[in-house]
C-alpha cells in the first residue's frame, strides 16, 4: 500500500509542472492587454507604457515564464492588476465561501445520492423507484442557472423562507439554496449510478451466496454488495469535484456569493493574469489532489488495485 501511495503521489508532480506551463501559455497567447483594460476605454500611451512595465508585460516571454515558475515555487504570485490585492489574499478571502459550497454540495450529493440509489435498487420497479428516477433525470437535465433562479423565486420571493441572495452577515441560512442548487446535479448522477451498480452487484454469485448462507438482507446489502458497488461511485465523485468547481462559478454568480468562481470570471474578463494564474493553479491543485485521493481510496476498496 505504501509503494502504491508513493507511486501515485509522485505521479502528481509532472502534472503540476505541466499545469503551470499550460496556465502560462494560455494567459500569454490570449488576446487583450490587461494594462489597456485597466486604463478604461481611452488612455494615454505614456501611462500605458509605465503600467505595462510595472506588470512585467514588456519582458520577453521566456523571461516571464522562468519568473512565473520561480514565483509559483516561492508562493509569490504577485498582486491583482485590477485592485492591487495580493493573489494569495484574494484566494484566501474567497476560499471559505467556495469550500463551504463545494463541500456542502458534495455531502448532500453523496449522502442523499447513495441512500436514494440503494433504496431505488432494493425497491426496483416500485413507485418510489420510478419517482427517484424521474427526479434524478430532471436533476441531471436542469442547468444550474435555471435551478438557482427557480429556487430564489419560490423560496425567497414567494414563500419567504430564506432572506434572498448574498451572504447577509454570514448566517448559515444564506448557504442553503446555493448548496442545494450546486448539489442537485451530482446527487442525481450518484443516484442513478448507485442504483445501476447496485443492481448489477446484487445479481452476482457472491451476493447470492451471502443470501444462501442465511445472512440478513441488511448485511447482504451494506456489508457485501455496497463496498463493491461503490467503486464506480467513487470515480464519479472524483470527476464531479471538477464539475463542482465549474458549477460554483454559476452558483456564485446567481446567488451573488463572493467565491473563487466569481473571482475567476472577473479575472478572465479583465485579463487579470496574476489572479487567473493563481486561481487556475489552485483549482488544478484541488482537482489533482481530489483525484489522488480517489485513486488511493480504490486501493482501500479494491485490494487488487494496489498490486497492479
Amino acid at each position, binding site marked *: 500500500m505504501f509503494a502504491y501511495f508513493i507511486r501515485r503521489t509522485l505521479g502528481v508532480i509532472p502534472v503540476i509542472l505541466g499545469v503551470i506551463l499550460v496556465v502560462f501559455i494560455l494567459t500569454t497567447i*490570449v*488576446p*487583450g*492587454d*490587461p494594462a*489597456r*483594460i*485597466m*486604463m*478604461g*476605454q*481611452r*488612455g*494615454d*500611451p*505614456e*501611462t*500605458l507604457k*509605465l*503600467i505595462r512595465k*510595472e506588470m512585467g508585460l514588456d519582458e520577453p516571454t521566456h523571461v516571464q515564464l522562468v519568473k512565473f515558475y520561480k514565483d509559483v515555487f516561492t508562493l509569490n504570485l504577485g*498582486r491583482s492588476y*485590477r*485592485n*492591487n*490585492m495580493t493573489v494569495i489574499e*484574494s484566494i484566501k*478571502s*474567497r476560499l471559505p465561501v467556495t469550500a463551504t459550497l463545494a463541500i456542502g454540495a458534495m455531502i448532500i450529493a453523496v449522502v442523499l445520492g447513495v441512500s436514494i440509489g440503494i433504496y431505488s435498487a432494493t425497491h426496483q420497479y416500485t413507485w418510489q423507484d420510478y419517482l427517484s428516477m424521474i427526479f434524478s433525470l430532471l436533476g441531471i437535465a436542469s442547468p444550474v442557472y435555471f435551478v438557482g*433562479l427557480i429556487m*430564489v*423565486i419560490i423560496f*425567497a*420571493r414567494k414563500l419567504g423562507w430564506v*432572506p*434572498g*441572495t*448574498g*451572504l447577509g452577515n454570514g448566517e448559515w441560512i444564506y448557504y442553503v439554496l446555493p448548496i442545494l442548487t450546486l448539489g442537485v446535479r451530482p446527487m442525481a448522477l450518484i443516484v442513478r449510478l448507485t442504483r445501476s451498480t447496485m443492481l448489477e452487484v446484487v445479481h452476482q454469485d457472491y451476493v447470492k451466496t451471502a443470501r444462501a448462507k442465511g445472512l440478513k438482507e441488511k448485511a447482504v446489502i451494506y456489508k457485501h454488495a455496497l463496498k463493491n458497488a461503490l467503486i464506480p461511485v467513487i470515480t464519479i465523485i472524483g470527476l464531479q469535484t471538477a464539475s463542482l468547481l465549474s458549477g460554483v462559478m454559476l452558483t456564485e*454568480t*446567481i*446567488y*451573488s*456569493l*463572493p*467565491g473563487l468562481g*466569481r*473571482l475567476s470570471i*472577473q479575472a478572465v*474578463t*479583465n*485579463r487579470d493574469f496574476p489572479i487567473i494564474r493563481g486561481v487556475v493553479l489552485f483549482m488544478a491543485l484541488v482537482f489533482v489532489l481530489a483525484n489522488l485521493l480517489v485513486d488511493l481510496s480504490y486501493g482501500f476498496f479494491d485490494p487488487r488495485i494496489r498490486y497492479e
Partner: protein
Amino acid sequence: MKKKLISIILTAVLIVGLSAAVMAETDKYGGVWKDALQSNPPQMDPAQSTDTKSAEMIYQLFETLVEYDSEGNIKPLLAESWDISEDAQTYTFHLRKGVHFHAETEGGTPTANGGREVTAEDWVWTFNHITSPETKSPRAYFIDMIKGYDAYRNGETDKLAGVRAVDKYTLEVELEKPFAPFLGTLAYNTFVVMPKEDVNKWGEDWNFHPVGTGAFKFESWEQDSVVRMSRNDNYWMKDEDGNQLPYLEALEFRIIPDYTMMWEEFQIGNIYQTYVDDPFYLDAKENYPDTFFELPQLGTYYYGMNVEKEPFDDKRVRQAMNYAINREMMIELVQNGRNTPAKGIIPPTMFGYNEELEGYSYNPDKARALLAEAGYQDGFEVTLQYNTSKGHKRVAEALQAQYRQVGIDVKLQNLDWGSHLDSVERGEAAFFRMGWVADYNDPDNFLYVLLHSDNIGPEGNYARFSNERFDTLTEYARLETDPEKRKQAYQQAEKIAVEEAPWVFIYHYTTHSLVQPYVNNYELPAFGQHANLFRDVWISK
C-alpha cells in the same frame, strides 16, 4: 357652541399637523441605504479609478473642488467660489473653511490624519500625487494642460509647477494655455482631495482603506460581496433648514452580478435601487410609475468605420451606411423605445447640441444610389465586430437585417471587451461597435477626444478620422472662453463630422433607475446612477 367646537377641531388639527411636521423632520435621520452594484468596484483609490462602479464609491467618500448638479451644470463643492484670470489661464479657488478629513474609519479606528482640516496645501499635495509618474494614474492626463505637467512627468522638476497654495484657503492653478472645459474635468472622481498621511501610511494597500472628506466614511469592503460605509458625523454640509447632513446612518452596496437576481432582490425589498434590464423593464416602468426615473444620458452609441480601410475609405459608402438604417424602428423593436435616435455626435442635453442638425434619415434608395456611385452596386460584405453582450447583439442583428435590404451583407463577430478594444485601437477592425459616455459635460469630450486627428488610436479616435478643418475648429473651441463662440465652433465641427460620416450614428443613451416608494429626495444625475450622492436621501419606512 358650534364655533367653539370648530376652533377646538382646528386647534387639534394644527397641533397634529405641527407635530407631524416636527416628526417628519426628525424622522429623516437614520436608516441604511441598501443598493446593488453589478460588479465589484476595482478601485477606491481615486487616482486609479477608471470605471463607474468605483466612481460611485469614491463620490460618497471623497470630494472634488466642484461638482455637477443634476442637470449637468458646474457648482461649488469644496471650492466655495473661484476667479478666472482674463487670459483664462489662471484659476483661483477660494476653499471652503471647516472641511475635515474623516477622523475615524473601519469601525472607529482613528485615521492617520486625525480628522484635521483640509487646506490648500492638501490640494497641492493631491494634484502632485495624482500626476506623479510613480502613481501611474490612468486619468492624470485629464489635467495635462496644467503648467509644468510634462516637466514633472519627465522628471525634470520635482513638483507640478502650475498648482500653488496662495494661503491656507486659496488655491491657484495655472494652465499652459486656456482650456475652457477645465472646471468640468475637475469634477471627475479622480480629482478629489486625499490626506497624505493616510495615503502614505497604507502605501500599496491604500485602495482598501480609503479616507476622504465625503458625507460617508469607509467601513468595510468584502470583495465581491458588499461595501459598507457609515455616516460622517463631522460632515460640513447642512440642508436648507440648517440640519446636519447626511440623513442616512449608513450605506450598503451589495455586489449582485446578475440583473435578474437584482430585480428579484428589489421585489423582495432587499435593495432600494436597481437598474432594470429586459425583460423586466416595461413591467417596472408600469408598476412603479412614481419612482421609475429615466432621463437622457450624456452618451452616444455608434458603429465606427475605419476610414483608412476599404470600403470605408469612400465617404459615399460611409454615408450609405447611415442612410441604410432605420434607427427609430430598431430602437422600438429591440430597446422598448428607450433611447433617442442620433443625428450626430453630441448628445441632446449637452451644451452645444444642435437641434437643427439634419443627420441621416432612413432612405434605402439613397443608400443604394450612393453605393452604386461608389462602385458597389452589388453591395459588399463586411464584418461588424462588437464586444460580447446581449444588448449589442440585439442591435447588431436588427441593423444586419436592414443592411441586407440595400445589399450590404454584414457578418457579426463578437469578442470580449479587452480583445475588442485592442483590435479597434490598432485599426484592425474595419467596422466596429463603440459607445461613449461623457467624462465631463462638454462637447470637447466628444468631438476633440473621439475625432481629432491627434487622438487616432488608443486615445479615442478609433475611426482614424482626420479632417484639417475639423481639427482647427475643435482646437479653437478648447481655447476659446466665450460660450457662444465655442458653441458655434462645435456645431460647425459636428456638421463636418456628420457630413464625412466616420461613424454610423445610432442613438444617444438614456439612463434609468428604479427606487422603492419609501425613498425620498432621490435624484438621478445626468451622468447616470454612478454619479449619485446620498447626502440628502432619506428613507420613510
